């Protein structure tokens, strides 16, 4: 008997319940699935996970369970994908995830300085989320935009190029402003 059972914990209650998604989101999933042969729905798992992340900020076991049913694959097969690819967030992060490329070509043109500047400006270490929950800072590997260095990604889908310190100031101030305005709305 395991310790949890001895304590009388209801293991059933720990099992994830499949997430629910709106009609609009389901329609986006369907567009992805339609790209592949009928018996190969699993091919859409990367795109569907990234759509979930775009909406919720991260993916969890409930999302994986939903997608496993939706795409005819085992929950573990979905989890294998979400844990293999670097850009999936497996836990809630700040409202804005910022990845700064620090690979060699970017490092030669101020990539690392940009990350250090952001850390100082936001008073957060690499990998941390700021206390106000707005920003998570991460280093990134090659984004395929080396001539644009310093380069960073905001929430996976938005690349910002030539990010000098002045532009970083402008970006961070702007994001803070957007967040405050969003909360008031």
């Amino acid at each position, binding site marked *: 008997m395991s310790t949890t059972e001895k304590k009388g914990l209801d293991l059933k209650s720990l099992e994830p319940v499949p997430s629910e998604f709106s009609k609009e989101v389901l329609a986006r999933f369907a567009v992805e699935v339609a790209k592949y042969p009928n018996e190969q729905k699993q091919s859409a798992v990367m795109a569907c996970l990234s759509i979930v992340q775009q909406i919720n900020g991260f993916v969890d076991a409930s999302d994986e369970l939903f997608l496993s049913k939706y795409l005819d694959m085992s929950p573990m097969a979905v989890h294998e994908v979400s844990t293999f690819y670097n850009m999936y967030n497996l836990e809630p992060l700040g409202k804005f995830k910022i990845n700064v490329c620090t690979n060699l070509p970017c490092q030669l043109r101020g990539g690392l300085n940009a990350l250090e500047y952001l850390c100082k400006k936001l008073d957060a270490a690499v990998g941390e989320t700021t206390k106000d929950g707005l920003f998570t800072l991460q280093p990134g590997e090659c984004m395929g935009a080396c001539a644009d260095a310093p380069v960073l990604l905001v929430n996976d889908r*938005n690349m910002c190029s030539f990010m000098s310190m002045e532009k970083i100031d402008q970006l961070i101030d702007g994001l803070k402003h957007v967040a405050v305005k969003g909360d008031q709305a």
Partner: protein
Amino acid sequence: MNTDLNKLLSQFKATGVETSFHGRHIKPQILDGLNGTNWSVKDYEARGGYQALRKILGKDGGEGLTQDQVIATVKESGLRGRGGAGFPTGLKWSFMPRQFPGQKYLVCNSDEGEPGTFKDRDIMQFNPHIVIEGMAIAAYAMGISVGYNYIHGEIFETYERFQIALEEARAAGYLGTQILGSTFSFQLHATHGFGAYICGEETALLESLEGKKGQPRFKPPFPASYGLYGKPTTINNTETFAAVPWIIRNGGQAYLQCGKPNNGGTKIYSISGDVERPGNYEIPMGTPFSVLLELAGGVKGGRALKAVIPGGSSAPILPANIMMDITMDYDSIAKAGSMLGSGAVIVLDETRCMVKTLLRLSYFYMHESCGQCTPCREGTGWLWRVVDRIEKGEGRESDLALLDNVAENIMGRTICALGDAAAMPVRGMLKHFRDEFQYHIAHKTCLVAATV
């Protein structure tokens, strides 16, 4: 919130002005006539786009080309794979079992993540239809009815741009069933990665496209016999497909003559690092490196050139004196002991510390090893840790021999080339800059005032 957010973020988007619209190409074919706004199907047609597709289908008033004729033309052109391996494209196409009765697939490898490379992004962002046309021609030549373009997850806006271009091409009748009223049908879809360098390896890409973690497959069987969903599949790089329409319009011989024997055509070189004007430069194969460096504005700040990584981070580094004597083509760079790879030229000036340079690359390969093969999974960690301790002034006399030993024990012992890619920069560094590593170990500090 989204409108405000998009408005804010749009200010920081790259426009391509610095990287591709500098007017400093030599006889460009793929990047010719682009300005950042003329990427739509109408603009592409105005540049002569989709004429090659019309030509092979006999929809330009001519007789059309047979599958064999298309493949023969591509063979004659001397076009070699632009993704890194440099394999002859026409030959690859001829491996496809054209008479195979079942489904076959065409895949474009746009998972551009080799540090230093950023050409495929600009091609797809600013000239997406040239890739679509190239793929349609390839599909026709090999009798393929379905294709996918697997795009690097970090360039999501480019993925979205490519999806719009696909819609345009379908609406204009260049994709879909019975293209331009012919009997040829081809469906093409865009798909994306999400942060895994290894998926640039063709069989890892196929696994990823099947909705799995991207761990490379053992070869053989090669994709031409067992590819996507176990079906015959041909995979080429984005720039390779983009070269095809020009070849069909102008002939294989004309393309070959743009470059040099066995190295046909133009090539887009992505230059990064210590140059005045980092960016993409499309120039004929066989152009001297010194000319390319000049196009890129020379070494930054007028400093002296120290070394160049000529073909992406996996390519062995070459010192300045060797680089200044070579031409930019597969054979010349191979003869000098490195490789053209993806055409990513990383320039290092005299102030750069080679230990620190290698340290960053070794970290990258350790981070991106998929973990499937022990020599790579463990060996990349060893390489990084040993270089790290040399950099920190904790290096031991025996460390250079250890690095050689670990690198040797990775090479040729893994399923895919990532192991070799991690080992080659180490060996290149130790070959050409051994003194600098020895100095670091003996003096616990750098030979140059490190600014990397």
